[in-house]
């Protein structure tokens, strides 16, 4: 089984870099050479290029929800996305749409996708570090990713 851990985000916009920081730490702690770890600052259609060809993909990214607390961690599975696909904008291509598109065009899409999202506090100012609340969540997310890989 080909597995990918993909950290998504922007490493110079404070909490938006949390996905990439988690991926770095996962790479440090991982002993399994069968698992690829990558980072990307792209989104949308470019995501297809990153995930095609893998059987299992774990994505880590920042998120902002209406009532979430900074540092809160969510775990989402592919089934949770089909809902967001229809609620999203007609004009952008989010993960769910990208998956659907990949299937439509017979690209090798992963069967299993898990997303760990960390509630962000600040994604509009420039910093290479996360806010303390989000920083504190990083070790926990790393643990969850490693557990997911073992599962």
């Amino acid at each position, binding site marked *: 089984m080909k597995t990918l851990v993909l950290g998504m985000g922007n490493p110079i916009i404070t909490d938006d870099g949390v996905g990439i920081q988690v991926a770095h730490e996962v790479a440090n702690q991982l002993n399994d050479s069968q698992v690829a770890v990558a980072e*990307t600052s792209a*989104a949308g259609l470019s995501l297809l290029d990153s995930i095609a060809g893998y059987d299992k993909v774990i994505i880590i990214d920042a998120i902002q929800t209406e009532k979430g607390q900074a540092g809160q961690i969510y775990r989402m599975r592919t089934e949770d996305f089909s809902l967001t696909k229809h609620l999203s904008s007609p*004009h*952008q291509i989010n993960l769910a749409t990208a998956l659907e598109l990949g299937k*439509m065009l017979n690209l090798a899409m992963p069967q299993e996708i898990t997303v760990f999202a960390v509630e962000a506090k600040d994604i509009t*100012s420039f910093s290479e570090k996360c806010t303390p609340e989000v920083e504190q969540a990083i070790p926990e997310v790393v643990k969850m990713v490693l557990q997911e890989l073992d599962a």
Partner: protein
Amino acid sequence: MKRITIDPITRLEGHGKITIFLNEDGSVANTYLQIPELRGFEKFSEGRIAEDMPQITQRICGVCPEAHHMAGTKALDDLFHVEPTSTAKKLRELLYSSFYVTDHTTHFYILAGPDFVMGPDASPAERNILGVIGKVGLELGGAVINTRKQNHWIIQTVGGRPIHPCFGLPGGVSRAINEEERAKIEEIAKGSVEFAKLTLKVFDDVVLKNKAYLDMILSDTFTQKSYNMGLVDKNNKVNFYDGKVRVVGPDGKELCKYGPREYLEHIAERVEPWTYLKFPYLKKVGWKGFVDGKDSGVYRATPLSRLNAADGMATPLAQAEYERMYSTLGGKPVNYTLATHWARLIELLYAAERLLELSRDPEITSPNIRNIPTAKPDEGVGIVEAPRGTLTHHYITDEKGVIKKCNLIVGTTNNHAALFMSVRKAAADLIKPGVKITEGLLNRIEMAWRPYDPCMSCATHALPGQLPLEVTIYDAQGNEVKKLSQGI
């Protein structure tokens, strides 16, 4: 009327807001637009080594990193007073042309296309790339993915890394290409030219041959007579990588043409109390408010503006399309905002042709890719055309090349005033007393700003990716009548 205060101090939570206030009779009283700004970048870059700036700034934007990389690289040439080698310039422009192919393709098929191919009244479930591919066919859909994928290979190969090139240096670039790579680039370029031609045909069949769309394009609601800005080469032809900034009026007359170092003599910024956004305008014309016309300093920097500001395209197929667009729409300049989508596809064709030309240039595989700077750095300005508008990078350093001050005017910033005006006009014209506010109607208001393709994906990077936007309409009593959001 209930008073609602728009407090710009309120955090926008990373998305844009259009707020529309209605009169008692249901007509539009006022419209406001707020877009999240990149704040604190100047502070963030102070103390950094200038040579790192193409690497740092390309991380501002997940959609057009190559544009920042290129503007930063040219600012470094100027900062270090060094001229790049001829091969380096060509390699830069080759990578840049390939980038334009990917970016303009993405915009048409994913962002703009759904409006036209599916129609503004189609349900959200269909009005996206899946619907578009359903309509244009799996083969063309596959070609969209493939063209992007192949051109990403070019960017990665020439630029040294996927998405974020490690390529630009003061005086040159970091690596040369060999014959095997060159040959593959040439093949991809040929395919990209065919793909661009096909895309223009789709536009022709779906948009131009549809009277309802053509009427919309030509309508007063979506017309704006502002100044046009774009980079031109020495023959006044559109060039994305290099040249002088040319500004042409809504009447077609040239206002000015200037080199990067003169930009502050021509552009000033207006501050308004209801938003953090600053509104650049033409100094020599002056700020007359959010109005168009040749007496107002408001200008646009979009694909359409570039075509208006130039005398033509530098490659033959694109030139033929350029002439066709202007003869179809009644001559130069074209002030129909929706024609920006057409202009973008003409640029797509030009980018592909230019890529092909450069891949065949006898110098392109030369190992002579860098002139080492010898002068002390002090101040430099680099300007390129980002897909979304003229992009300016300005660095001031100490004599070791450490940044003291940095100013960026990103593509979308040029268009803040014009974007606001387009939205305001569409809202005023489309929301009338007694007219039911449907999603289709609000989509038509969105169609007023989508041609500008505001690039703030830097500001938000949660799962969605593109600029999330919220449109809220309040009645005269201050009650929320309707809310539409995308990507939130």
